[in-house]
């Protein structure tokens, strides 16, 4: 019985994933004094793309066709391991935080291959940059989670949410994780989702050759992946999931708190996106250097117990 509750939770969270992107876009537009597209625009985009024909490059192989499916299924698998609003999920036995990292990297691996597959130099450039940025992000994530795990004693995602009282080390770790999230979700200052200027895009360059349903699947995957990261961060900052048997009232409260947490993080992302410019690619090293320093500080803080 409980397993169905978790499957229901999973489906609800997946359905809500594109909403986060819509919300961020809306906030950004409103701050820029524009009306902007509706919050539901990401859903409209997906539906629109499903109604379109698909064009596939002649020089591509089966990798190009398979990649969207693997990218989305790996993002979905990762999302199923992230606690949302009900706790004690049986999914913790399938994978911990480190497993989530490896699962997401499976999707990235295939997306990068797909970028190379069409023979377009944009795709290759996107793949190269994506792998570059994600490999530099790995040690930052590792250190941040290491410091949190030193306090919680476990890499279990549910157990990582420990900070009933905010500790300095956890704050540093979350800040470090947040910088990584900006990079992993192709946000300013690392990447820019809005641009289609060939030389600056990273994620968009990899998916440049995609169209129709495949593109819809890839866009969904990007939304889901974004929610994976935000969900983890929200859970570490403020764990609020309710137990299965806590009753309807507690669960509804937990859902509302979950939505508020994600909306709060989305708001911060939106504010950062409108107030910063995109960095040059090779400034990314400094960016992650900063992030690593934060991670080391977080570990030192965790050692001192603060």
């Amino acid at each position, binding site marked *: 019985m409980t397993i169905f509750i978790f499957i229901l939770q999973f489906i609800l969270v997946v359905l809500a994933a594109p909403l986060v992107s819509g919300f961020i876009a809306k906030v950004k537009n409103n701050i820029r004094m524009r009306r902007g597209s509706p919050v539901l625009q990401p859903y409209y985009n997906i539906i629109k793309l499903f109604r379109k024909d698909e064009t596939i490059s002649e020089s591509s192989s089966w990798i190009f066709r398979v990649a969207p499916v693997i990218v989305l299924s790996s993002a979905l698998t990762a999302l199923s391991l992230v606690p949302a609003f009900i706790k004690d999920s049986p999914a913790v036995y399938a994978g911990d935080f480190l497993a989530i990292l*490896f699962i997401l990297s499976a999707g990235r691996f295939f997306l990068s291959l797909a970028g190379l597959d069409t*023979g377009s130099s944009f795709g290759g450039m996107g793949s190269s940059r994506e792998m570059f940025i994600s490999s530099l992000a790995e040690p930052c994530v590792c250190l941040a989670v290491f410091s949190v795990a030193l306090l919680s004693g476990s890499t279990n995602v549910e157990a990582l949410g420990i900070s009933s009282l905010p500790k300095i080390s956890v704050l540093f770790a979350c800040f470090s994780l947040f910088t990584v999230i900006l990079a992993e979700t192709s946000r300013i200052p690392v990447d820019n989702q809005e641009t289609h200027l060939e030389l600056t895009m990273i994620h968009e360059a990899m998916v440049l050759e995609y169209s129709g349903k495949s593109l819809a*699947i890839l866009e969904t995957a990007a939304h889901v992946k974004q929610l994976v990261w935000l969900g983890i961060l929200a859970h570490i900052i403020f764990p609020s999931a309710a137990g299965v048997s806590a009753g309807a009232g507690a669960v509804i409260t937990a859902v509302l708190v979950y939505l508020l947490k994600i909306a709060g993080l989305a708001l911060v992302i939106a504010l950062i996106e409108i107030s910063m410019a995109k960095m040059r690619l090779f400034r990314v090293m400094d960016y992650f250097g900063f992030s690593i320093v934060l991670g080391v500080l977080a570990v030192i803080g965790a050692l001192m117990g603060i």
Partner: protein
Amino acid sequence: MNYFILDHLSFIVDPLSLFFLAVIFVVSIPAFIYSPGYLKGHVSGGKTVLLHALTAVFIASMAAVVTSADVIAFLIAWEIMSLVSFFLVVFDHEQSASVSAGVMYIIMTHIGTAFLIAAFTIMYVHGHSFKFGELTAACASMPQNLRDLVFVFLFIGFGTKAGVVPLHIWLPYAHPQAPSHISSIMSGVMIKTAVYGMIRFIVFMLGPASSWWAVVILVFASVSCLAGIIYALMEHDIKKLLAYSSVENMGIILLGLGASMLFYSMGMSAMAVFALSAALYHIINHAVFKGLLFMGAGAVYNAAGTRNMEKMGGLVKNMPVTAVLFLCGAMAISALPPFNGFVSEWLMLQSFFGGAYQIQAGGYKLFLGLCAAVLALTGGLAAACFVKAFGIVFLAKPRSRQAEQAREAHYSMLIAMGILAALALFLGAGASVVIKYIIPIAGYSFGADTAGITSGMAGWSLNLSAGRPGFASPALIGLMLIALSAVVSAVYFFAGKTGKRSYRTWDCGYYNLTSRNEYTATAFSKPFRVAFGFFLFPYRRTQKIREAFYHLTSFKYETLTTPVFKKYFYDPLLRVFLGTAGAMRRIQPGSIHLYIGYIFFTVILLILFMRAF
């Protein structure tokens, strides 16, 4: 009469030897299956027989290395292994690259052996025995400074064979020069015998009492990881790329070994067992996927006639099976679930996390955290490296005529690679079963009882039973991936419009794209070359070819990186050696009269010497 040698040829099979025997045969048997297809049409009949004989001796010598129970037997087997592998490296002796690689290999390996002999001599002088059992007992009473010395000698000796940076210099030259199935045995198995040596002599005999040994190993391992994978990223010779990646993977294995020694010296025997199991797991994993990748590289080399990745591309269309199998290897080495690389990297990170949680000293916690970060960075770079390897070799359009006309590999090669790919999947998805066989071996090395550990583990999920454990179940993750992929595919096929058309890749409205427009291996690694410029010192070589001063016919452009260790460590050393040899030559000018004079004076000196004393 005392038959000195025969006395010492004693062999024993204990759990540790058994594990390494398994590693040896897991790669060697597919390598034998692979060889007929690979050698067909390349090597004449007589040479094939010679190659098979050498390979057999090579495998037997490795088996002897891991089963010997006596230092003399160990050294003999070790030396046979080194010599036979030298002959295998120079097998294609028509190529000058083979000969120079072989010479570098044999010099380096003998420097290593010299250190080993020195270490064993110290142990013998102290323990008065060559037998492992008696030596182990004698080492317990060895004074600390002597133990430290023995450790350093053993680490240098085995480190040379393992390709630890900066002693790795021979590895990326020697491994690629051998025939591909031999490369897979050398990279997959032979360098693992060095880890066997470290476990057997350092962990087992000396007992890792001092924590600084572990710190030394961890530091060198971290450097090996990063340097290995960064060099691999820069490489566009497919087999050399794989060889550098072996340096990286040996680093990962040694990270596990070092961590386990650190935990043991701190009295955390359960964590020590976990870290060593992670290392052992990575040993067999690396054997499997590196064997697979080298065989795949061999298939590609046969088909495209070159090892240069920039001349390949598009092979997925003509070599579909090889492509799938190589992709399995690439996914495994990039630690993607549900393949086996994921399991050992997860275990490794997990034992760093768990060990750091339990260890008391704060400095070690931070140190372990940094090691874990290095491991994470290495993992990320390895994924990038193998996206490049697979993407440039197999995807997009062919970059040369030969790549365009490539044909699928011989079925014997495909069977061999298929076996290894299946093993990679089994060792990944079946990890929760396999780990129960590996943990007792690690426990045996430390003399720790592991019955409690294995029985407490979840049946279908990996976990370290420390604190609130994190779990990972590759099988379950695999099933979830498959189930969700099925759902997504169903949606893709049955929802919305199904119209599809094939068209050119977008070319910005210019003429049709050719393979010249594609991203190359060099271009792919450009960001990494810039980011790690402080270590690689990249430089450009440009050459203008002119007919007349104002008429440029072509422009050559090359990007190169500086081999730091060779330029700043080995070359000066070599200059000193050659300089000394040059100076020595002055007393050896080739005149027979002078030599007779030398003999005369030596005799006189000896007579005086005998008189005086």
